């Protein structure tokens, strides 16, 4: 995966956490994530389509996610609160939206967010899709960005290739 696909998500996460939560995000070196490696306990997922396709997830330990949602909403709530997933989804939506805008010259759409809650669950990307995991930490705890995107198949075709339907 092109490293230029990773930087927008890091920049956007740092911007969102700074503006909405008032904390600084520090990132460690990105690593290749195996399909079977578990994510943390609470995961927000956004699909991307258009000139870029794939997904980005933001995954948190339970305690970290509860602290983050508390600051974000101004209300203390645990993972089983009815509004908890909505808050995580909105946070991931902002990160993805901010990253999307940095893919200059590309038309990209993002999906409405999905949120998965469950101890050490596994999120698998598409077949042959590489996932890069970026470990992050801030004063509220540790979390990870997992980016699994690529140029769309149509975009990647050589110039002049026939992309029309049969």
């Amino acid at each position, binding site marked *: 995966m092109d490293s230029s696909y990773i930087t927008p998500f890091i920049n956007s996460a740092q911007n969102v956490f700074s*503006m*909405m939560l008032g904390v600084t995000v520090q990132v460690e070196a990105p690593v290749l994530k195996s399909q079977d490696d578990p994510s943390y306990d609470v995961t927000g997922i956004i699909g991307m389509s258009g000139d870029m396709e794939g997904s980005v997830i933001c995954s948190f330990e339970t305690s970290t996610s509860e602290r983050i949602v508390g600051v974000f*909403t101004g209300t203390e709530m645990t993972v089983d609160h009815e509004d908890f997933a909505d*808050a995580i989804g909105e946070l991931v*939506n902002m990160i993805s*939206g*901010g990253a999307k*805008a940095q893919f200059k010259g590309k038309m990209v759409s*993002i999906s409405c967010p999905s949120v998965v809650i469950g101890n050490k669950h596994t999120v698998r990307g598409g077949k042959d899709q590489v996932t890069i995991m970026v470990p992050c930490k801030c004063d509220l705890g540790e979390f990870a960005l997992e980016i699994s995107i690529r140029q769309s198949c149509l975009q990647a075709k050589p110039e002049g290739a026939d992309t029309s339907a049969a």
Partner: protein
Amino acid sequence: MKILLVDDSKTMRNIQKGILSQLGYTDLEEACDGLDALSKVGAYGPDLLLVDWNMPNMDGLTFVKQYRAKGGKSPIIMVTTESEKARVVEAIKAGVNNYVVKPFTPDSLADRIKETLAKVPAA
């Protein structure tokens, strides 16, 4: 001042409600998508609308077009993660009066609201 908040995220509507309350606006109505908003604008008669773009059932841009097509004249602020210039232009052409990109600070949203209302001609 009646303000309609249109966003599929309850969290975001609550954040906006908090900011608006601090500005002294307390007559607020909520809608969870464009369809819900269309069903409420007639009876509620908002003086200002804050509208998200990406929502299920009916997105914010479609809502704005239909609201304007039905003669809705109240100012609309689009509050969205969509920040590309082409999107902003598309929204303005559809009838949006002002634009706020998420994430935002309370001050930036407050400034946009004041700016938008200041441009509304007195009745």
